[in-house]
């Protein structure tokens, strides 16, 4: 027979000083009428207070408690609301522990009570009570450690199960003589009433700025050095994001960043420092939010373990731009939903755990009728948990605008399980607004959707049961098990087992009360096969760099590790049908594959269009200098790294060259009037029509379009040339040459075409 022991320990603040002895400067009759009790509340010299916390241990009042373990036997009982682990949805619910003590007399001796008890003019046993005095001496308990220790006679304290909590509040019922402490698990520190990220910035503009000013001064004086780094990003007036460098209180600004527009700002407009996570491991982001913004003790997080988990089962990075203080628990919950995580506090090991949603091993420990206490099993269907469609909005446009506004997102990944809808007779739609998945992250969004659907396609059942304390299979919060019960059968009636993950665990004196959810998640393969990193370009974009895109979505590639040929990362870029990747500058290709370590296997699939910028048309002749040549078109696809190219059905078009300029009079005559401009080359963006440097009598050429070059102006004597069509040079005139065609592919020797080549227009060069 085992004899149960329950202890509660609390760490109270206690001063190491002796009253009136250096460094304590307190003095009777000067700083107080009686000596302090070495507590914060009774301290008479706070600057010299030296906190040397004392642990008080309490036990229940029962004769079977071993006298070798000293404890004050005033613990009446404890009640616990266990934490709820949310599997892939949010942070769940916090554990709450309530411990109640009875009041009694106390001699004020022993460490942590009254160092000067022998000098007091009263008998502490006869004057007042333990908790009455404690209430007055120790009112500042919030945030202090509380431990619930449970074991059996024969165990030393160190061998017992210890659960760690943080004191949240206390209540002393003076009339009833009951003192109750409420403590929470450490994730309570992430709540919005105590943790926000980024921190609120207190600086504001000392004077208004126009929409093109590049300098702003902060107020109040000195706030720059106090709150703002040497460089970074700020949001001004909650409307515009600027990057900055700082000197004192003066910011040098680059306006209109991260999807915002430059506008005027008034004096007093607030200047909020931004917090940016760019292509970070989810583990790193959560750790940073917890420790930097929620004051979670870093020792509660073993980051290396988290990173090993995400590297093995997630292999994605996430980004977000945060420019308004936001509750940390909200940010972490959003990331949990995007990265398919479960995060919980393990009270026993004093560790915050992170686990990626994944299937339960078939050889996991099993709870069945042999180790479940009789008459404690309950199963419940949860039809409201079913999901048949996941709509995940991502690629947020403007960090300053609505988090839950669909208009603020460029993309949405919709995953629908039509079979499930047919089976269950209706849709069950779940919308997610993701600030953590940037542009190009469709494959991440889609995979997250698939994970979500695999878990909730069929509503997971909830199981409750009790296991005997000290049994062979001990339940652990957050861990996966197999579960067998009479009602769990296959279609033939044969006994089946269910994969479960424990979501609530209430340790009791004799039994552990377990609540678990069926874990139906299945392994979800990546878009193009397991292990591939797929980057889907599903919206029109300009001047993309493949490496930059990749690094915003995945961990940096390593390439060959020397373990064998072809063991580098497999990366696939897909330009979706109907999507155009263009360029705003003929000097820059529309799509640059970028720099990669050797051994990375890259495939570029073009189902839509990659198109260089069209060259501008040449200006018409002006004066004796003659007309100008049209400008060359830009490159569509550039690569210095070997790639596979699948473009059958897609379009890779160089920019058309601009048409040469023309004139209205005879060559050499001066001045010309009504000069003719050349047509702009085709492209995305297209080239502008040619113009003239002086403002009289201009006959400009037509700008190009994405499909064709613009027409050169033919009003005067000498016609201007037409802009080149996609991949074509501009027309040459007698006065000005047409611009060269932009290349469809620059770096063709690095390209291996898979299948038939697609519609390529323009030179293929090296």
């Amino acid at each position: 027979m085992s004899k149960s022991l329950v202890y509660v320990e609390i760490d109270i603040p206690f001063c190491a000083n002796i009253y009136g002895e250096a460094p304590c400067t307190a003095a009777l009759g000067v700083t107080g009428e009686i000596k302090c009790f070495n507590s914060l509340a009774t301290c008479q010299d706070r600057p010299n207070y030296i906190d040397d916390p004392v642990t008080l241990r309490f036990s229940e009042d029962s004769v079977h408690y071993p006298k070798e373990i000293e404890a004050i036997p005033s613990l009446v009982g404890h009640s616990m609301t266990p934490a709820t682990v949310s599997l892939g949805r949010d942070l769940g619910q916090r554990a709450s522990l309530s411990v109640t003590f009875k009041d009694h007399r106390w001699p004020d001796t022993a460490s942590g009570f009254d160092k000067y008890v022998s000098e007091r003019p009263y008998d502490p046993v006869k004057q007042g009570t333990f908790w009455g005095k404690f209430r007055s001496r120790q009112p500042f308990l919030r945030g202090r450690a509380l431990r619930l220790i449970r074991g059996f006679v024969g165990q030393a304290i160190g061998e017992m199960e210890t659960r760690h909590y943080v004191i949240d509040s206390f209540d002393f019922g003076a009339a009833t003589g009951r003192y109750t402490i409420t403590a929470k698990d450490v994730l309570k520190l992430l709540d919005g009433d105590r943790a926000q990220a980024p921190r609120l910035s207190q600086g504001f503009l000392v004077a208004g700025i126009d929409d093109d000013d590049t300098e702003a001064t902060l107020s109040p004086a000195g706030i720059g050095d106090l709150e703002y780094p040497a460089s970074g990003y700020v949001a001004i007036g909650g409307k515009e994001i600027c990057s900055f460098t700082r000197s004192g209180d003066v910011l040098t600004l680059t306006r209109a960043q991260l999807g915002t527009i430059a506008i005027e700002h008034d004096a007093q407009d607030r200047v909020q420092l931004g917090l940016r996570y760019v292509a970070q491991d989810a583990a790193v982001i959560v750790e940073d939010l917890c420790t930097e913004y929620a004051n979670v003790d870093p020792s509660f997080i073993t980051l290396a373990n988290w990173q090993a988990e995400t590297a093995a089962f997630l292999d994605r990075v996430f980004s977000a731009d945060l420019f308004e203080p936001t509750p940390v628990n909200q940010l972490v919950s959003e990331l949990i939903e995007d990265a398919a995580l479960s995060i919980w506090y393990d009270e026993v090991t004093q560790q915050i755990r992170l686990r990626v949603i994944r299937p339960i091993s078939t050889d996991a420990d099993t709870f069945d009728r042999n180790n479940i206490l009789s008459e404690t099993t309950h199963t419940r269907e949860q039809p409201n948990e079913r999901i048949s469609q996941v709509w995940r909005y991502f690629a947020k446009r403007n960090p300053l605008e609505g988090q839950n506004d669909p208009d603020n997102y460029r993309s949405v990944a919709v995953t629908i399980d039509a079979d499930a809808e047919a089976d269950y007779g209706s849709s069950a739609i779940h919308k997610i607004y993701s600030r953590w998945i940037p542009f190009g992250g469709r494959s991440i969004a889609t995979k997250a959707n698939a994970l979500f659907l695999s878990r909730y396609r069929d509503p997971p059942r909830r199981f409750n049961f009790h296991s005997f304390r000290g049994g062979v299979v001990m339940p652990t919060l957050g861990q996966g098990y197999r579960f067998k019960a009479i009602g769990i059968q296959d279609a033939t009636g044969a006994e089946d087992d269910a994969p479960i993950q424990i979501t609530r665990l209430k340790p009791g004196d004799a039994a552990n009360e377990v609540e678990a959810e069926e874990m139906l998640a299945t392994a979800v393969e990546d878009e193009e096969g397991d292990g591939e990193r797929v980057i889907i370009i599903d919206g029109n974009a300009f001047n993309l760099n493949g490496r930059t895109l990749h690094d915003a979505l995945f961990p940096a590639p390593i390439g060959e590790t020397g373990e064998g040929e072809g063991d580098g990362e497999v990366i696939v870029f897909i330009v979706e049908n109907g999507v155009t990747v263009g360029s705003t500058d003929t000097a820059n290709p529309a799509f640059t594959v970028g720099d990669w370590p050797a051994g990375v296997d890259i495939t570029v699939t073009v189902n839509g269009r990659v198109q260089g910028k069209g060259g501008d048309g040449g200006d018409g002749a002006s004066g004796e200098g003659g007309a100008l040549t049209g400008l060359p078109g830009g490159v569509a696809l550039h690569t210095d790294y070997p790639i596979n190219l699948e473009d059958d059905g897609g379009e890779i078009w160089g920019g058309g060259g601009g048409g040469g300029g023309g004139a209205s009079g005879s060559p050499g005559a001066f001045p010309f009037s009504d000069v003719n401009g050349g047509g702009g080359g085709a492209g995305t963006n297209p080239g502008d029509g040619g113009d003239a440097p002086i403002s009289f009598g201009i006959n400009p050429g037509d700008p190009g379009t994405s499909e064709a070059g613009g027409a050169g102006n033919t009003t005067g004597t000498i016609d201007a040339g037409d802009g080149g069509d996609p991949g074509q040079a501009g027309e040459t005139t007698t006065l000005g040459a047409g611009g060269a065609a932009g290349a469809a592919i620059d770096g063709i020797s690095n390209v291996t075409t898979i299948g038939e080549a697609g519609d390529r227009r323009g030179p293929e060069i090296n």
Partner: protein
Amino acid sequence: MIVLAENLVLSPTFALSANQPLIGWHNLVTAANVSATSEAAGFPISNVANPITAPGGRWRADYEITGEGEGEEGGPAVQSITIAVNSVEELDYVAIARHNLASIGAPITIYGQSEEGEGEGEGFAELVQETLLANDGPALFRFEKQALTDIRIDIGIGSSAPEIAVIYAGALLILQRRIFVGHTPIPYGREANIINGRSEAGDFLGRIVLSEMTATAVDLQNIDPAFYRSDIDPFILASKETPFFFAWRPGDYPGEVGFAWMANSPKPVNQRTADSDGLMQIDLQMTGISL
């Protein structure tokens, strides 16, 4: 346990009352009149003057076991606890609770003096001979009733520092009637809250004791009304706040002593008619510690 002074056993008056129930509630020990050879930090000797038995409410000698011999610097020494009772009342017992003297193998001797000696230690006479207690349960040392100015408790060297939570010294309440039937000796009055574990398959998974206490009850009957008023009622009054030592049949069962406190509010009732001198009855429900 009960430890009787050797000379008390030979007393003819004691022979008649050897099995009369004893209640040690009267106590002259105060924080101001007790002192000790040494006291560990946080465990002052003043703690024995209050009835709190919990850790932190105890006295512990400042007594480092260094391996050196008695009397040498840093070595263990006999610990003396002196109580300046200065009593004009006659005293006949000393009792201790929540101690470790048996565990550490430290013998205990009780001395008393009726007048101040000229020098320290002079004038003390042995009241109860050196005794090695059988266990760490409550111990009651009974001696011939006498007026004393000082009581000294000597604790010999043990394997570690001695500690005592409670010391009472005073005059015993010796009940008029012996207890024969219907009483559970307090060491055996164990009450436990136990949970049995049975699996869904019907297998035994174990038993867990959640809490345990000792409790008993004494139904005192045929109490002389004058005795109740003169001797028992002061005890009942004091028991509202303070615990007491209780030995139900000290002659036959000297080991069955409890340090107990009331679990009810006992009220006497008249048991007989006035013709039978108004004999009284009172029911005492008590819980406490016996080991």
